[in-house]
């Protein structure tokens, strides 16, 4: 893949992710900034909903971008940048999950700080009032909670699709599952969300 950006012919937002990364590898800091802008929000939200803990998500966010900066020389442009980025992110989330399991085994006697209720933005009262149900904020909170309660394999597919808009084939490559399995996970995730939030559905439509 050619890392030269045809600056005269293309606005920077028309340049592919892969060309931006290769341009950055060749010393163009502006190319990284554009790439970062494209992915910072979706990646952060992916991590937030995936690990369900804001401080861990921030830690992983920093760690993953640092890896991208340090390892961009390893990127040959043979795969999509998004696949590369989210494969790193997913692997880091899996490592994090293993560490958390280990810590949980290690501290069974310790008092629990997590009520298991809300995840990223915990609310004091999980039961919304009728008045609360009428507000968009509560609807959003309930959707966020329902997403975070999805089984892990469904949640990661859902997040990759919804937040970054990745195609099913690309998601299949990232999660290492057949494309039909990925589609089924997405369908189960949506059915589950719909079941959890069924009473709110008509408010959205």
């Amino acid at each position, binding site marked *: 893949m050619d890392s030269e950006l045809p600056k005269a012919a293309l606005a920077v937002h028309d340049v592919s992710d892969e060309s931006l990364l290769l341009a*950055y*590898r*060749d*010393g*163009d*800091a502006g190319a*990284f*900034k554009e790439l*970062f802008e494209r992915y*910072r*929000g979706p*990646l*952060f*939200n992916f991590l*937030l*909903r995936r690990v369900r803990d804001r401080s861990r998500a*921030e830690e992983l*966010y*920093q760690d993953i*971008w*640092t890896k991208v*900066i*340090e390892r961009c020389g390893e990127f040959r442009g043979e795969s999509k940048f998004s696949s590369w980025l989210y494969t790193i992110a997913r692997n880091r989330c899996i490592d994090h999950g293993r560490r958390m399991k280990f810590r949980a085994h290690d501290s069974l006697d310790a008092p629990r700080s997590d009520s298991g209720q809300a995840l*990223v933005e915990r609310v004091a009262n999980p039961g919304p009032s009728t008045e609360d149900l009428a507000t*968009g904020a509560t*609807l*959003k*909170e309930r*959707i*966020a909670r329902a*997403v975070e309660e999805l089984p892990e394999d469904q949640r990661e597919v*859902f997040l990759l699709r*919804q*937040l970054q808009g990745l195609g*099913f084939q690309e998601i299949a490559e990232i999660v290492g599952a057949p494309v*039909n399995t990925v*589609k089924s996970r*997405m*369908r189960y995730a*949506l*059915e589950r*969300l*719909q079941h959890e*939030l069924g009473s*709110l*559905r008509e408010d*959205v*439509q």
Partner: protein
Amino acid sequence: MNAEEFEAQVFELIEREAFDPNGIHELLAALPECREDFERIKGALALAEQLPLLEPPAHLDGVLLALAAAQASTTT
């Protein structure tokens, strides 16, 4: 397209509806048994669109962009 194929491609068909509504309506008219599934998934996707998005911390972004710039300057 039969019902099984429709089911397998329901996500693609929902996306297609945005630019080819007539084509999708014709398909649904020919496969009425698929309409409920199509509408249910479409409704769930509309619900999913409401997932709140949070901003990454600005100070972290600053640190990362500074790191990236420093790394780039060692390359040139």
